[in-house]
């Protein structure tokens, strides 16, 4: 555990005595609602998610176990002011991400200017050579970003990770709200909460806005790897709510550098593909030849400018953990402004001094693989055993360039219902940022993930994390019944 006590987003530093200003309605609600009633609603939420079939597979287990992500009915609340500052920071960062990707596959000015070392970008596995020199319609690459934030104090938010490939979790943001509206309607009478169910419509508008020039009524489809994928529920949820086709690779074909969808009435032209398949699998002619999920010729159609891929191939270079530590410089370079949202301090183990520091402080630091994700291949020093630390030390010495290290942050907590009653549990936050042809927007909300085990800082659903609804308060509007 971190030495400093964590900041609690409801109780502040008062250890349960007094809620923070503006959060009184939630405090009252928690006082007034009996433990038995909270428990009843918690179970009702779980039953609802189970009947919807919102489950996920846990990778690395012998059988792909289908689990429900636990849901906690005590929401997180962000004030209008907090959200205004956050969203401005997110939009600045995503603007910089798109400019960076455009630059590294185009003029490569940031490398020539020495702001980011050329070898880190060009030698990176995520630098996607097949798209070098190609520019997608409207110059947008990372149409959908899920930026992971952590908080350590009232005004201290940090970006932990930029998910700029195919970020998932947005269906939880929407379904969690649905559940809260049903189970705790009185909360929405006491608090003016901004809606999140506009997301599918905003996403559809975003997709249509980035269609290739000349597509009059652009046809958008969602390309899924199929129902064995852990995020399949989300794929079908989003396709349904946007009113677009959910397709697999075998439903599409490329002819004459144009993408067609096979239907029982013949084939129809496809203009925009929201693909939830990694770059490596989208076209076996260009990437992994053994891919059964992709579409042969898709990259030719993309390079010819006849189809928009969302997100564009190659955006992985922007959210690579080796690039992450340069993000503040990247934001300054493309926006001319100071970053509104800081990074977590990061030691690049490729640099000898940083490696030495990391090796000397392994029991205090979080060490991550630059090419890992989802909490796999990660050391949390303060909670690791001696054997785990020594195993990581050996791995670090063998391949230092594969690792970064960060301080163990005292992540903020939020009261959470557990077997031990209502107790503080650590959380993070993933808001979703959309970029279309006319700019960047952020839906007022996001996915709050909570580490359910006492003291745990790992919020990943694959590592025993749960979720909460995230209320963004409306600064203009007072709470009124049924107004959400």
């Amino acid at each position, binding site marked *: 555990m971190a030495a400093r006590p964590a900041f609690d987003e409801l109780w502040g530093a008062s250890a349960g005595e007094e809620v923070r200003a503006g959060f009184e309605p939630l405090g009252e609600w928690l006082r007034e609602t009996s433990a038995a009633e909270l428990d009843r609603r918690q179970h009702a939420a779980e039953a609802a998610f189970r009947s919807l079939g919102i489950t996920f597979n846990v990778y690395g287990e012998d059988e792909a176990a289908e689990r429900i992500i636990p849901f906690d009915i005590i929401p997180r609340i962000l004030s209008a002011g907090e959200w205004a500052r956050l969203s401005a920071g997110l939009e600045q960062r995503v603007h910089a991400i798109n400019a960076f990707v455009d630059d590294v596959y185009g003029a*490569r000015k940031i*490398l020539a200017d020495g702001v980011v070392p*050329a*070898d880190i970008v*060009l*030698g990176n*596995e995520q*630098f*996607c*050579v*097949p*798209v*070098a*020199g*190609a520019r997608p319609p409207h110059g947008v690459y990372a149409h959908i970003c899920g930026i992971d934030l952590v908080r350590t104090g009232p005004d201290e938010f940090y970006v932990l990770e930029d998910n700029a490939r195919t970020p998932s979790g947005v269906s939880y943001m929407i379904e969690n709200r649905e559940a809260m509206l049903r189970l705790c309607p009185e909360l929405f009478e006491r608090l003016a909460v901004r809606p999140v169910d506009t997301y599918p419509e905003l996403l559809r508008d975003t997709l249509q806005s980035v269609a290739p020039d000349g597509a009059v009524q652009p046809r958008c489809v969602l390309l899924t790897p199929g129902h064995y994928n852990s995020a399949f529920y989300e794929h079908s949820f989003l396709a349904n709510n946007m009113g677009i086709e959910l397709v697999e690779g075998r439903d599409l*074909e*490329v*002819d*004459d*550098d144009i993408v067609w969808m096979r239907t029982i009435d013949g084939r129809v032209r496809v203009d925009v593909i929201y693909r939830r398949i990694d770059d490596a699998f989208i076209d*076996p*002619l*260009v990437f992994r*030849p053994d891919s059964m999920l992709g579409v*042969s*010729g898709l990259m*030719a159609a993309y*390079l*010819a400018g006849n189809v928009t891929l969302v997100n564009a191939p190659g955006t992985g270079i922007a959210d690579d953990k080796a690039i992450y530590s340069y993000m503040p410089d990247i934001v300054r370079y493309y926006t001319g402004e100071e970053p509104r949202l800081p990074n977590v301090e990061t030691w690049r183990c490729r640099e000898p001094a940083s490696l030495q520091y990391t090796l000397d402080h392994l029991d205090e630091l979080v060490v991550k693989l630059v090419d890992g994700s989802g909490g796999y291949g990660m050391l949390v020093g303060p909670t690791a055993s001696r054997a785990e630390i020594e195993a990581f030390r050996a791995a670090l010495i063998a391949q230092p360039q594969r690792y970064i290290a960060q301080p163990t942050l005292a992540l903020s907590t939020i009261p959470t219902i557990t077997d031990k009653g209502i107790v503080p549990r650590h959380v993070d936050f993933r808001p979703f940022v959309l970029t279309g042809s006319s700019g960047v927007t952020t839906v007022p909300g996001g996915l709050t993930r909570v580490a359910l085990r006492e003291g745990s800082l790992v919020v990943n659903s694959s590592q025993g994390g749960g979720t909460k609804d995230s209320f963004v308060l409306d600064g203009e509007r007072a709470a009124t019944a049924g107004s959400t």
Partner: protein
Amino acid sequence: MRLSVNHTTTYRYSEPTRRIIQLLRVTPSSFQGQTVLSWRIDVDCDVRLREGRDGFGNVTHMLYVDQPVQVLTLAVSGRVLTEDNAGVVRAVPGDLPHQVFLRETPLTAAGNALDWLAMDISEEGGAKLDILHGLNRRIHDRMRFDVAATGVGTSAEDAFGAGHGVCQDFAHIFIAVARRLGIPARYVSGHLFRRDGAHQQPAAHAWVEAFVDDLGWVAFDPTNGISTDDAYLRVACGLDYREAAPVVGARSGGGTEELSVEVAVHQARSQSQWQVQN
């Protein structure tokens, strides 16, 4: 040298196909020391060809066939003027920064045996160019050319361990070791005019380019143990065979397929035109 090339690829299918889609990298670019005079692709059935350029700067064609065929013949032919630049390759269109070519790929991953070779070579020391010439000679001396020993999926490490392979394997071994030594290296596919009179070949050729500060890209042919000269016609490059292969395809229907390749590279007799062009 004025080279004339006929590169014919024939696919025979046991049943009629429904659709064929192929990505071709069979068309050379002009650059300093290589001038394409004429080039064409002829296909013996009704196809659509779409020209493009990939991230490496290679000229690509997408080929689409959507009627049943049992034989597909791609006849690629052209004439090119080449100069002997002692292997130095300059001003290739769309070329990427050399740092891109330090990345390991599955086909060019070095295992124990290639690590040993890299260590051995780096202990000998010397200028980078000499190191590369030494590597080229070593591969040529150590490896036996054998068309039956390896396949398109054989890795550099496996081919080196076996001690034999084709030009593709020789190239992968060179690339794996050069990258281990921190020298950017890439795979080149193309054609070779054989001065020994073997003008008909059952496959296209492959060699490598390595990046040397001050000189730029320098081409080596480990299969023959020499630097390239005006007998070499460069067509495409990539991190490994996968990204520079002349034809990559997918099809539906067609049953099993049988592939045959014939390459003929001749020296055109007209010297006068060569002199005029220079």
